[in-house]
């Protein structure tokens, strides 16, 4: 498909027209050779976003999401590459499951899917999963997400073994013995009688991971950082040269624990929403480069798993279709970071950490892009989402930066009907 995008602002480029042929950006061609010419009316073209932490639920939990619905949702959010975590059923702990995911993703055609393989067989925290074979099949990183890599001894083995295969390790940081709760521990959890998860549960595990990475001289990536203490430790570790990288999610810089006061399970996730001081520390970490990436942790759940008593509700919220707009509205529009920096957080850095080679807008690069409307406010309506999940706390939010067109490999994967 030959596509011409006219009247656009292109991030960091002094052009107003983009030409796409055979899936890549190319030199100008004649209008009459175009299958499709789109007048973008001054809207902004950014490289296709990369989400290095999401849950597509397939195989095993297709009632929550399928690879097709999940990647369609990702495309609507401006993502062209997504990395699903391995907590599927069966667990993505072997090459066959990796291949199956890739096959489904290819058939769906909405996004590049880069599976993350389990660190331990069955996510059980005991034996190493077949990481080398998973890499051969297409896995790009290793994680026991949902849980931390269970013991310091196993973490050491995983870091050492993955280094042979140049596979990044992403760890969910939570000291499980302290984490028997449903929201952040503090005055709010005490007030409404919900068991709390202390920030110490996250911080202790981040400390363990940093110490192990430093000792071995090997890299580690910390998932969804939500605490002030975590940001501080990672900042200090980076300053001493420890090969640590990390990510956070839009909810950790937009929401705080007090939202849980009415027991609305759309504010229940893990790590939990923290205090304002944590939210501000996350923003500071995004600003000064301590935090490398913004990920969605897109976690669709069925209504029956959320419309229950707060402590019994599943953790997690959907995120693809709000992530960019939240980043744009709360960070760029507030003059905390630039749009370039937001793209670094949502595209270049995840691509670099996982060695995906995404984010290019030059001639010859794969035509992965999103068009975003940064000038007009829109009201986010959860019923317009393409994900099967409806578990979002952002329904009715007024935001800027709506993705209106997404192209992956030269194919239009999402287009807002005007």
């Amino acid at each position: 498909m030959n596509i011409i995008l006219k009247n656009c602002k292109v991030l960091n480029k002094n052009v107003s027209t983009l030409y796409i042929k055979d899936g890549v950006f190319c030199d100008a061609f004649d209008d009459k050779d175009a299958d499709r010419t789109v007048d973008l009316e001054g809207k902004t073209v950014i490289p296709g976003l990369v989400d290095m932490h999401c849950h597509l639920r397939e195989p095993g939990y297709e009632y929550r999401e399928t690879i097709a619905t999940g990647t369609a949702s990702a495309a609507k959010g401006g993502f062209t590459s997504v990395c699903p975590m391995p907590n599927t059923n069966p667990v993505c702990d072997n090459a066959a499951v990796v291949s199956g995911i890739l096959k489904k993703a290819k058939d769906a055609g909405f996004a590049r899917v880069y599976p993350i393989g389990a660190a331990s067989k069955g996510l059980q925290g005991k034996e190493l999963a077949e990481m080398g074979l998973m890499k051969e099949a297409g896995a790009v990183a290793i994680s026991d997400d949902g849980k931390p890599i269970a013991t310091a001894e196993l973490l050491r083995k995983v870091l050492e073994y993955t280094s042979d295969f140049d596979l990044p390790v992403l760890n969910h940081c939570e000291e499980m013995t302290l984490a028997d709760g449903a929201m952040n521990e503090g005055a709010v959890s005490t007030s409404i009688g919900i068991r709390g998860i202390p920030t110490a549960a996250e911080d202790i595990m981040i400390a363990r991971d940093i110490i192990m990475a430093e000792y071995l001289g090997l890299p580690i990536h910390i998932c969804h950082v939500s605490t002030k203490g975590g940001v501080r430790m990672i900042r200090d570790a980076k300053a001493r040269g420890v090969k640590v990288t990390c990510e956070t999610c839009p909810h950790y810089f937009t929401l705080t624990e007090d939202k849980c006061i009415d027991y609305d399970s759309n504010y229940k996730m893990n790590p939990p929403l923290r205090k304002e001081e944590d939210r501000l520390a996350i923003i500071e970490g995004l600003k000064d480069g301590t935090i490398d990436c913004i990920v969605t942790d897109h976690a669709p759940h069925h209504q029956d798993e959320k419309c229950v008593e707060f402590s019994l509700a599943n953790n997690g919220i959907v995120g693809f279709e709000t992530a960019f707009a939240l980043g744009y509205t709360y960070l760029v529009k507030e003059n905390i970071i630039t749009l370039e920096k937001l793209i670094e957080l949502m595209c270049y850095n995840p691509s670099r950490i996982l060695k995906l080679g995404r984010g290019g807008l030059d001639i010859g690069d794969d035509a992965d892009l999103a068009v975003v409307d940064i000038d007009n406010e829109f009201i986010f309506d959860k019923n317009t989402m393409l994900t099967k999940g409806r578990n979002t706390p952002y329904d009715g939010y007024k935001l800027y930066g709506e993705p209106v067109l997404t192209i992956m490999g030269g194919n239009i994967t999402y287009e807002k009907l005007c």
Partner: protein
Amino acid sequence: MGLKNKDLLGLRQLTADEIMEILETAKMMKMVLMSGNKKTSHLQGKSVITLFYENSTRTRLSFELASKYMGSSSANISATGSSVAKGESLLDTARTIDMMATDIIIMRHSQSGAPHFIAPHLNASIVNAGDGMNEHPTQALLDMFTMYEKWGDFAGKNIAICGDIYHSRVVRSNAIGLNKLGANVSVYGPRTMMPIGIDQMGCRIADSVEDAVKGADAVMGLRVQLERQHKSLFPSVAEYSQFYGISPEMLAKAKDGALLMHPGPCNHGVELPTCVYDCDQSVINEQVTNGVAVRMAVLYLLNARRNNV
């Protein structure tokens, strides 16, 4: 005046005026209760269902008697012996009860926020009879009614609450309600049972039982769930009663004639010894009677609101 909301979810949702109206109404209900003829017609033609997911003696029976004294049709459902045991969800169970033209559902549930979760889905009024570690509003109302009968006023009164603060919905409701009426609440218990941020609910965190009860107008013990010992929240019953129990010596540090209270059931010899339970200052048995009066008042006011809307 009357109550603003359809449901009684907690004291958090009530204003000081609403709390006082409940207490004043309870005064009248207590007169009914103490009279030879306990039958009124306030709830005639109304249905009141108790839905209990946790065990209860006092709360359940007092609600049931309160509703019967006032002439309602009432029935009881418990988690065992209903479709709950077949795995029916809370929402489905509550809707099922609601669809039988039920007027008031009184629910106890182990999960904090369970009544808040179902209330918006129902026509019936929900009365929270205890939700997890969150609130137990009618217990606090009966505690406050007991104080109100003795004192006639709450301003500047000091209430000491000792024991397992962390797991106690009684503490939370009392702290919220007593603060709204101008009383001061001090709490004390093992640090392992003291929730972070309880001071932000308007409680003073005391340093010892003595510090908590010194100068108190009322001293409230809380039941210690003995199984907590196995979760390493305290090492032994002997140690607990020595350092955290309300002994006669400790009670003597309170004001002369201070009320000794306990929501029950009591572990004698753990949170307080039998001699304290039975002492002249103890109003533990009166609390039980007042529980019926207060629950009659709550049912009366909620029903009045339903009739007016």
